C-alpha cells in the first residue's frame, strides 16, 4: 500500500495492510500536525506533492527496505492538501519476523522519505506562512 491521499488517513487500514502470518513484529510511525512550529502557532498545513515522482520514490524506498531487512510488508500513506492541527500527515508501517528489523526499517523509511520524496509542507500561522525545508 503506497498512497498519496487528500482524505483523512485511517491508521488501522494501513496497519492491516502489512499483516502477515510470518510477521511477529509490526512497527508503525505516525506523523501528526503539531500546534507549534518555529515558535509560532500553526493554524493549518498545506502539503503539495509532485505526485508521479513521489509515488515512484516511495515505491523505491519500500523496495530498498525489503532488500536491506527481512521485511514482509511495507505500507506508506501520505496526506496532501490542507491539514488541521492533530491530523495524521503520514503513516509508515513495516512488518518483519522479529522486532529489531521492524524498528530499523521503519525509521529508515521515514528518515529517507523526509530527505528524498518530493512533497512540500507549507505552515500557515496566524500572521503569515512559510514553505518548510526539512532539517536534513
Amino acid at each position, binding site marked *: 500500500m503506497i498512497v498519496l491521499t487528500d482524505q483523512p488517513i485511517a491508521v488501522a487500514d494501513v496497519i492491516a495492510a502489512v499483516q502477515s502470518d510470518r510477521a511477529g513484529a509490526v512497527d508503525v510511525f505516525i*506523523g501528526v500536525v503539531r500546534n507549534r512550529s518555529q515558535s509560532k502557532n500553526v493554524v493549518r498545513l498545506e*502539503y*503539495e*506533492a*509532485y505526485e*508521479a*515522482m*513521489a509515488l*515512484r520514490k516511495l515505491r523505491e524506498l519500500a523496495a530498498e527496505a525489503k532488500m536491506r531487512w527481512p521485511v514482509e510488508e511495507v505500507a506508506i500513506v*501520505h496526506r496532501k492538501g490542507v491539514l488541521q492541527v492533530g491530523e495524521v*500527515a*503520514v503513516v509508515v508501517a513495516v512488518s518483519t519476523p522479529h522486532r529489531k528489523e521492524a524498528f530499523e526499517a521503519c525509521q529508515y523509511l*521515514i528518515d529517507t*522519505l*523526509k*530527505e*528524498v*520524496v*518530493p*512533497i*512540500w*509542507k*507549507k505552515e500557515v500561522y496566524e500572521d503569515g506562512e512559510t*514553505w*518548510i*525545508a*526539512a532539517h*536534513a
Partner: protein
Amino acid sequence: MIAKTPDNATQPAACRVRIALFGVTKDIVGQSEISRTLPQPATVAALLDDLKAAYPRLSGLSSLAVAVNNDYADAAYCLRENDEIALIPPVSGG
C-alpha cells in the same frame, strides 16, 4: 568522397524544455510551469544556471535539484525536449 557529418548534425542548436514548479519555487517564479530555451548541450547544470540568472531568489534556497522523468538527475545529464522536468526545492514531507 562523402563529407563527414558534423557532430551536432542530429541535434538542433537549441533545446526548448518545460519545467514543472512546486512549493517555494512556484512562489518565486510565480507560475506552476515555465518554458526555457537552452543552447546545446542542455545539461541540468546549464538549466539551473539559466533559471538562477532569470530568478535570482532561486539561488537563496538551501538546495535545488532537478528531476527528469520522475527521478533525480545529476548536473551533467543532457535534457531533451520531451523530458518531464521539475525543479525540486528542499523537500519537507512527513
